C-alpha cells in the first residue's frame, strides 16, 4: 500500500510548515508517482519495470545444458543452443536447437511469442526434413521430458497474467518483492497461480513457486548465478526446478551468452529452419 501519509506523520522532526507543504505536494504528486497503489497495481508495476529492464537487448544467443534428475538420483543430460530476437511490437522470436541426446540432434523448436494471442510454434524434424506446426496454445506439456513445461521456459508476456503484490521478504539474502501472478488463460495453463520473488535492487527473478490446478505446491524454481551483460542485462546462469510431488528435478545451466549478434527476423522464419545445423 502507498503509505507515505503514515510515514509523513512519523517524521516529527520536520518543521511544521515544511511538512505541510511537503504533505500537500506529496498528496498531489504521490498518487501520480505510485499510481494506483492497490496490491494488484503495485504487483503489475514491479513486473512492468522488471520487464522493461530485461528488454532492449536486441538479440541473444546462448548454450544450455539441461540436467534431469529423478528421485533415485539418476542423471540425464541434454544440450541445446538458444537464439532469441526481440521484436518491436510483438513477443520474442526464439529458436531452440537440440544438440543432444544424439537421436534428437538437429531438431529445432521455433516459437513466435505473442503478447496476448496464443504463440505460434513449429518443430523442425531433420530426419524427415519436415517443418511441422504444433498446437501451442496449451503450454502445460513437458519440455524435453524435463520438469519444465513449455509455459515455464516461454517468454512470460506480462499481458497473459494478473498480478498481486503480496509482501516484502528476504530471499537469497536480498530484499525481495513477493508477487503472485495468475494466468488469464486458465484453461491452457498448468497452474492456478505462481508466486515470484524479485529482488528490489535489480528486479531479477530469484524464485518462483508453481501451484497446480488443485492449488497445491507443485514445483519451485530457483534462479542463481546472475551475471551482468552489456553493463545492463542481468541473466541467471543456473535455474533449478524441483518438483515437490515427484521428487524429480531439472537444472538449466546457461553458458556462452552473447548479445547483439546481428540476428534478423529471417533467422526465425519457419521457411529457413532446414538450414540450421
Amino acid at each position, binding site marked *: 500500500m*502507498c*503509505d*507515505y501519509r503514515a*510515514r*509523513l506523520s512519523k517524521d516529527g522532526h520536520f518543521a511544521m510548515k515544511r511538512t505541510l507543504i*511537503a504533505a500537500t505536494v*506529496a498528496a498531489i*504528486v504521490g498518487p501520480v*508517482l*505510485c499510481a494506483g497503489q492497490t496490491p494488484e497495481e*503495485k504487483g503489475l*508495476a514491479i513486473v512492468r*519495470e522488471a520487464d*522493461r*529492464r530485461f528488454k532492449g537487448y536486441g538479440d541473444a544467443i546462448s548454450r544450455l545444458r539441461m540436467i*534431469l534428475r529423478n528421485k533415485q538420483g*539418476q542423471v*540425464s543430460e541434454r544440450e541445446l543452443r538458444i537464439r532469441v530476437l526481440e521484436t518491436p511490437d510483438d513477443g520474442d522470436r526464439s529458436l531452440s536447437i537440440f544438440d543432444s*541426446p*544424439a*537421436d*534428437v*540432434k538437429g531438431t529445432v523448436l521455433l516459437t513466435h511469442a505473442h503478447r496476448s494471442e496464443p504463440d*505460434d510454434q513449429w518443430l523442425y524434424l531433420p530426419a524427415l*526434413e*519436415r*517443418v511441422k*506446426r*504444433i*498446437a*501451442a*496454445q*496449451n*503450454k*502445460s*506439456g*513437458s519440455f524435453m*521430458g524435463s520438469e519444465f513445461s513449455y509455459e515455464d521456459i516461454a517468454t512470460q508476456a506480462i499481458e497473459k497474467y494478473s498480478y498481486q503484490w503480496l509482501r516484502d521478504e528476504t530471499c537469497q539474502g536480498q530484499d525481495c*518483492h513477493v508477487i503472485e501472478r495468475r494466468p488469464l488463460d486458465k484453461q*491452457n495453463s498448468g497452474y492456478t497461480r505462481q508466486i515470484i520473488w524479485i529482488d*528490489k*535492487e*535489480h528486479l531479477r527473478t530469484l524464485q518462483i513457486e508453481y501451484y497446480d*490446478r488443485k492449488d497445491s505446491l507443485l514445483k519451485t524454481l530457483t534462479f542463481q548465478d546472475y*551475471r*551482468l551483460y*552489456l*553493463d*545492463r542485462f542481468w541473466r541467471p546462469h543456473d535455474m533449478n526446478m524441483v518438483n515437490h510431488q515427484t521428487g524429480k528435478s531439472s537444472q538449466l*545451466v546457461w*553458458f*556462452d551468452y552473447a548479445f547483439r549478434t546481428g540476428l*534478423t527476423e*529471417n533467422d526465425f*522464419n*519457419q*521457411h*529457413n529452419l532446414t*538450414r540450421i*545445423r
Partner: protein
Amino acid sequence: MYGRTLAVLAVLAVAACPWRIASAEKARPEAVGPQTNQPGEPNEPNEPAPARKGRSGLTGYVAAEGRLFFHDPLYAGQEDNNGSLAAQPEYYYQWNNGALFTFTPFARVDSVDSERTHWDIRELYYHYTQDWWSVRFGMARVFWGATEFVHLVDVINQTDLVEHIDGEDKLGQPMLQFSSSVDWGSLDIFILPYFRERTFPGREGRLRPELEIDTDHAIYENRDKERAKDLAIRYSRTFGDLDLGTYLFIGTNRDPLLVPADYLDPNDTADPRLIPFYERVTQLGLDATWASGNWLWKLETVYRKGYLDPYVAATGGLEYTFYGFAGGKSDVGLVAEYVYDERGDDPEMTSIFDDDLFLGLRLSPNDLAGTQVLMGFMQDLGDPENAVSVEASRRFGDHWRLSLDLWLFLDAPENNVIYYIRDDDFVRLELAYHF
C-alpha cells in the same frame, strides 16, 4: 527553500514506493561492440569459446534391423525373414555467415533382398544464404505437406520404397533451388536436372506385388528419360494461425504406373513382370495447416494432368493433443484423416487410397527415455480393406534407440493393393546408435 522541499518530496515519494528506486535508475547508455561480461565473471572455463569462422560436425546413425514376417511367403523366390545393417552419417560445415555445406550418404546391406542392399546420397549440397534470399545446389531433400498418413503434395523427392512401406524414406534429389523470404511470403524455385527412379523390393523381398518389378528397364514418356528437366515453383506464407503453401510442378511423375511387360511388348518372352512407366505431369498442389487451441486442421490437395486422365486427390483431417494427460507429464494426440482420390482404387494400382479413413493415436510420456508410440488404423470406406500399424521407440542411454514397428494387413479384397501383401504382416525391430 524550494529545492529542499523538492528533495524531501522526492524522498517521501521514493519512501512511499520503494521499488521506484529501481525504476529511477535510468538505463545506462547501450554498450557498443562485443558483449562484455562482468569483470571476474568469465564464461564457464570448461566451455570452448564459439568458433570464429564456422562450425562443423559429424553426426548420424548406424543401425541393425530385423524383420520377422508372420506368414509364409506367397510368391516364388521370397524369403521368410530378413536382417540388415544400415548407416547414415552426416558431415556438415556451417560458416558464420549462415552458408552450409552438408554431405549425408546412406547405405543398407540386407541379408535377403538384393534390391534392399542399396546406397544413396541423401544430401550433398552447398546452401548460400543472404538475408532475404538463398541458393542451394546439390542433392537435397525437401518436404512439403501437412498431413500425417498420406503425403500427396510432397513431390520433389522420389520415395525409397524398398526402405520402408510407409514411404517416408526419400532419395536425394539433384537440384538448383532459389529461395526468397520476404514480408509477403516465401517463394521457392526448383530446377531438377535429373530424375530418380523409385526403389522397389526385389524378387527375394516381401511387401511386393506378385509380379516382380523390373526396375532395370523402366520406361519414360519423355525421350530424355531421367535427364528430362523438372521445374517446381512454390509459394508459402503464414497468416497467424494458418500456414499455406501452393505450388506448380512440371516434370516426371514420381509415382510410376506399373505395366505388365507383355502388355508393352506381346513378344516378351521373359518371366511375367511389371515395368515402371514414368509419365510427364503437370501438377498443382495446395497444403494448409490451421492451429486453433489444441487442434490442428490439415489439408492437402493435388490436381494432376499427365498421360492418363487428369484427376484430383485430397487428404485432410485434424489432430487434437491432450497436454499433460490425466494430470501427468504425458501428451496424448488423436489424429483422424481422410483420403479421396478421383481415380478410385482400380486394379492397375494407380492409387492405393481412394476413399480411406485413417485414425491415429500418438503417445508421448515425456520420459527420460523419450518414448514415443504411434498407432494407426486404416479403413477403406468402399471396400472391406483395412490395416493396422504400431510404431514404438525409446532411448537407452544417450546414444541408443530401439524401435519396434508392427504392421498388420487385416482384410484385403482382390484387386486391391493390400491384397498382394495380405500375408506380409510383419514386426520390425531396429537398434540404432546415434552419434
